[in-house]
């Protein structure tokens, strides 16, 4: 399991990028952006994991036990919030663009060429 997890992180990262590049629907691009972000969770999770460590909550276990890295989890918490909020904003833009232009396909929306 050593480097397999990092391989999964890279694999999901590339599929997220592929989704954005190849999509013909703005909503699909937003979802692919979410997939791209989940790749950072897998990477951070792998970096923070300790074999034999348990969750860093000491409500029921003594303080000295080996635990997983709490810092990485705090970073991931912030990441989840950022993902949801930025995506809500982007999807609102898609709805508004659809309302005005009548289409969600970036090809047809291309007014700003040149």
């Amino acid at each position, binding site marked *: 399991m050593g480097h397999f997890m990092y391989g999964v992180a890279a694999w999901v990262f590339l599929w997220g990028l592929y989704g954005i590049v190849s999509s013909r629907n703005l909503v699909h691009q937003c979802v692919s952006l979410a997939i791209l972000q989940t790749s950072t969770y897998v990477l951070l999770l792998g970096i923070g994991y300790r074999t034999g460590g348990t969750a860093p909550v000491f409500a029921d276990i003594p303080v000295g036990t080996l635990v997983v890295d709490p810092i990485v989890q705090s970073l991931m918490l912030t990441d989840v919030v950022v993902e949801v909020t930025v995506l809500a904003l982007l999807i609102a833009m898609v709805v508004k663009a659809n309302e005005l232009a009548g289409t969600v396909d970036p090809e047809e929306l291309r007014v700003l*060429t040149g």
Partner: protein
Amino acid sequence: MIRALVPLPVVVPMIAAALVSAIRPFVPRWTAAALFTLGAAFNVWCTAMLFAATTHAPLVYWFGNWWPRGILAVGECFVIAPLPALVALLVSTLTLFASIQSWQLKPAASHLEPLMLLFMAAMCGFVYAGDLFNLFVWFELMSASAFALCGLKTAEPAPLQGAFNFGLTNSVGAFFIITGLALVYARTGALNMAQIGATLTAKADSLVLVSFLLMTVGYMVKGAIVPFHLWLADAHAVAPTPVCVLFSGVMVELGIYAVARLYWAMFEGSLATYGDGLRAIYVSLGTVTAIVGGLMCFAEHHLKRLLAYSTICHAGLMLIAVGLFDSAALGGFLLYVVGHGLVKGGLFASAGIVLHRLQFVGEPKLHGRGRGLVWTPVLFMAGAAGLAAVPGFLLETGESMMIRAATPFHFGWIRWIFFFGSVSTGAAILRFSFRTFFGWGAPSPADAASRVDEKQETVEEGRKVPACMFVPAALMIGLAAMLTFIPSLSEVADSAGHRFADRPAYIATVMHGAALEMSQFQALPSQGGGTIRSTLAGAAAVLLALATVWRRQSHLSGVLEHLECGVPVLRHWQSGHAGDYVLWLTVGTTVIGGCFVLLLH
């Protein structure tokens, strides 16, 4: 007590933003605008005080009283050094001028105040941050408030697609930064920049190189460096003018500042051995950006996109200075950032006046319509002279310092890149003003971008230009000229640059609180050639603009015709399709990554 002032440039605008948003339904609109201007004015005072306090020793402020435990930084800190303090002062000043100009905006833009306050707070936090993840959070807050500000003018489909491209590309850049950050944390087990800098001393291996690459690419997306620059023109066509003052005035420069901050605070220890290779990569990136930006700027006929491309060109020039990875160039970089921020802010404010008075921003439609105006052409001319780095403006002092720093590395040829950048951007703005305000020559060729027109954003498009739009523009451009008369300006900038690049002193002050005595640096001999070359640049810009305007009569009309319509490849590259932008982002990262791999062997 100066130390108590340190968090205020970030906290006070945030509380003001929350307050404005809470009381907005109960108070008349002018209270929100007044609170916004008050918050910006407070920030200007506060950042000025902090800048004054850091002349002898940088200030370190640990949040929550979490002082470092030996070599481990437990909490997060703000580090106020002269260079970041001056950039924060620039941020606050531009926001103050933008707030004055936003009084003229339509009431529908009532959500502008809290978002602009958050935008200012995020940029001040970004500049002061001493922690790597804190830097990312301010970067994300800057982006989130910028996306929201692009939603203000939702009448036509074009702006929304521009805002979406801006949002998507910057978010992908943000995820590159997080990946790089995770790698640095895996290697050093720390998030504080000084502690990382102290740990990363061994020769950089693949992990350190790739994390530096991913993080710089993420910040260069915000810094509009080719091939990551494609979103900038769309975003400027979308944002209201006071917002554009901040976008181009300082947000783009912060992307380049971040590259410098990453290198000198953390990676210098392990990347110094690759100095020449890195220098070659980043200087060539800056050169390509300057050339592409200059060409596209001259070929653009939509005023705000024209100014956006000139920002790309100048961002490339700034990356050349940072890409030298030498502390001597940082003084020039600082002056160039401040000068460019002020001049570009003034030009966008003048663009706001043009949109307000003449209702259009497309050059073909504006041909000769601006004859009635007297002072606005003067602003445009002064702005063009400022961008062309004519002597008497900050950009010229900054430019000569940067070129002086480049000569020891046999990069003397970059003076011609600066020359090209100044001439192309200056000539484009002069051409626009000759055609619009004097109506000389034939109307400009219309292309797809210039037909996209702006909806009116200001109230009662009356005959006269309101003072609240003219005074900020004049002050910004005036400041860019007047600051050169400060006697010891370049010495102050040079010492700020050298202290910024002094990693051992940075680590000592942050981790151990010891105010190390500034290591003496020998000021580079000043070269006389600077002023001659920049006056030549100004003259060449004027000549090029005149020739383009009256190209029917001039014999080289074929060349100018081609130049003005722009290189077709570049025009099509700017396709307005977010998928393309992210494709070029991936291709760019892979190409630079390839150069990094070659660098290692």
